[in-house]
């Protein structure tokens, strides 16, 4: 696990050194949410009804924000060559990258979500469901995003392309995250959604580092 810890530590150190840069995603997440009451009108019933879905959609979009730099910067400054020739297994490096990405984008969103839920006048059970949903859903977003980031290294307009590739793959996470919130809000059991989100996360945990590693090996130059 040398590769995992080395890359995780370095990416977090980089995020800290580029002070402020780390929190851009969560700022975008919050700002995006604040636009909806302005666009849709402040009617409390509507906002609380839409809240879970809006937060889930914004989580998807905010995740994309830092994704295109996940491997692109390492590619540009030659570090990718180092990662590819290092004795550490490539999947462990991808996993380290994805975990770092989640800690920088997913985890702050998880912390900000209850506050934003309150701003949207969501009920407490719904906010509880939202936190559970984001906790299980956002790691999948980072993991699947890592595959997209590995595939688009060195492309023209990588960021837009990445969004086009990755967003369709995010749909199941979106559906089950907002489903969890709806179920929690109406007092239904949401164990089913939670276990599906968990299963999707575990599946991504197994498959995506491997897929991204295959993609990275193609980069070459």
């Amino acid at each position, binding site marked *: 696990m040398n590769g995992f810890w080395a890359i995780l530590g370095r990416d977090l150190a980089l995020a800290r050194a580029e002070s402020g840069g780390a929190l851009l995603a969560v700022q975008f997440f919050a700002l995006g949410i604040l636009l909806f009451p302005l666009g849709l009108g402040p009617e409390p019933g509507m906002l609380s009804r839409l809240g879970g879905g809006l937060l889930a959609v914004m989580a998807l979009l905010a995740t994309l924000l830092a994704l295109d730099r996940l491997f692109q910067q390492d590619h540009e400054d030659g570090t990718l060559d180092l990662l590819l020739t290092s004795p550490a297994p490539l999947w462990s490096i991808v996993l380290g990258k994805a975990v770092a990405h989640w800690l920088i984008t997913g985890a702050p969103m998880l912390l900000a979500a209850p506050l934003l839920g309150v701003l949207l006048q969501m009920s407490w059970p719904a906010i509880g469901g939202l936190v559970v949903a984001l906790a299980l859903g956002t790691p999948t977003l980072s993991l699947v995003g890592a*595959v997209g980031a590995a*595939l*688009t290294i*060195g*492309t*023209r*307009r*990588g960021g837009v*392309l990445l969004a*086009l*590739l990755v*967003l*369709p*793959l995010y*749909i*199941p996470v979106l*559906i*089950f995250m907002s*489903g969890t919130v*709806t179920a929690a809000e109406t007092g239904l059991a949401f164990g089913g959604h939670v276990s599906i989100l968990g299963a*999707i996360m575990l599946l991504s945990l197994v*498959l995506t580092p491997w*897929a991204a590693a*295959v*993609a990275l090996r*193609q*980069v*070459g130059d």
Partner: protein
Amino acid sequence: MHRFANPARFLRLSRAIQPWILAVTVPCLLAGLYLGLVESPIDYQQKDTVRIMYVHVPAAWMAMFGYSSLAIASAIGLIWKHPLADLAGKAAAPIGAGFTIIALATGSLWGKPTWGTWWVWDARLTSVVVLLFLYLGYMALWNAFEQPQRAARAASILALVGIVNLPIIKFSVDWWNTLHQPASISRIGTPAIDPAMLRPLLLMGVAYLGLFLLLLLLRMRVELAERRVMALQLARSRDGEPS
């Protein structure tokens, strides 16, 4: 394993089988259209609208078939580094996307008289929209690289990731649909299939499949010809150099 890697052999083979595919496709298409649009019984509820089914349903089949063949070609291209497989994937994507668009357009045309709106967030239609975006992403990735080899590798990996995801997406969209859709709305589908309806449907299915294969071979041949032209131009530009 690389028996067909040789473009000359592929070109010979494709020239040989194209007339046969054509010979099956055209009669099937004509018979299917006649039986479907003229002979087949009208639906008790949907009246003549049901005839859109003969254009719509096989298109939806081909949309799915196209993505599956994309994924299979990608797997072959990745594992055996077979250049023709990469080519087949690249050539199949726009055809599959075309069938997907036909399925969506006819589904929408069906929706207007049936539901009174051009679009209903029906589970199948929604899945097909997502499939269209998977196709578009694949095609965009092919075009995003300067080196065709890298493009082929990246697009193949994307196609495989997509095919693994497709059942999950389908499952989640179905689930979402049962949650949000009032049960009273009838879905696009094939209500109680009568043999008189099944026959034209299958004929159209065969015709679409033939069309898909014909277009695929044609596109692959065009692509090969383009590469050949480029190679010749490259060779001519280095005139004087012994090769």
